[in-house]
């Protein structure tokens, strides 16, 4: 299935991309599995998305957790803890 990925703020700078469309292999169907899939790219992806890095994830613009399911066509955003206001 295909999903739309978005990256914001320091994470966007670190991976050098604000987003992409990505075809996921079968079995990658949750936030946690997607993060692992991206970490497996190695290099800056491994560093930026490492498990010990505090990141927030939104699926279709709602805050999500590691077990949140991902479906065909979803918009998934990764970003650091927010600092507005």
């Amino acid at each position: 299935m295909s999903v739309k990925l978005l990256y914001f703020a320091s994470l966007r700078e670190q991976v050098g991309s604000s987003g992409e469309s990505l075809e996921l292999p079968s079995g990658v169907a949750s936030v946690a599995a997607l993060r692992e899939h991206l970490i497996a790219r190695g290099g800056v992806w491994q560093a930026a998305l490492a498990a010990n890095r505090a990141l927030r994830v939104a699926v279709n613009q709602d805050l999500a957790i590691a077990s949140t399911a991902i479906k065909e066509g979803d918009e998934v955003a990764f970003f650091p803890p927010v600092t507005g206001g």
Partner: protein
Amino acid sequence: MSVRVQSADFDVGAEIAALRRGDPKIGAVAAFIGLVRDVNDGSEVRSMTLEHYPGMTERALEGIISAAKGRFRIDHALVIHRVGELQPTDQIVLVVTAGSHRGDAFAACEFIMDYLKTQAPFWKKEQTREGARWVEARGSDDQAAARWEPGQD
């Protein structure tokens, strides 16, 4: 519209007047205005750039206002948040709540601001003498929002 994300500045007096115009049951208006400081974490801040997640930001803020209206007796609420480059002394954010009595107006204003700080997807990048840096989230902001959770009263 109760939520606006914009690069332009805002006029607090005009926004409050518009929010309560023609509504004689309003007896209390509470407002919070967040400003750019010239010092943060010991460094001089020369300017600041605010990034956001278009779409989700508005959705998150509308959700926070909706939660505040469900919890407190307020009739109107407004959030304006600026994005883009800002300078010290500039206004960043405005939260206004209006209702019959001050208690709920005050509480709702603080509730909205506490959740905005921890839930709404905005990020600040500061330009300092030492270079550019992303502002780190503060644990004290999470604690402020957690005060409103069940069992924390």
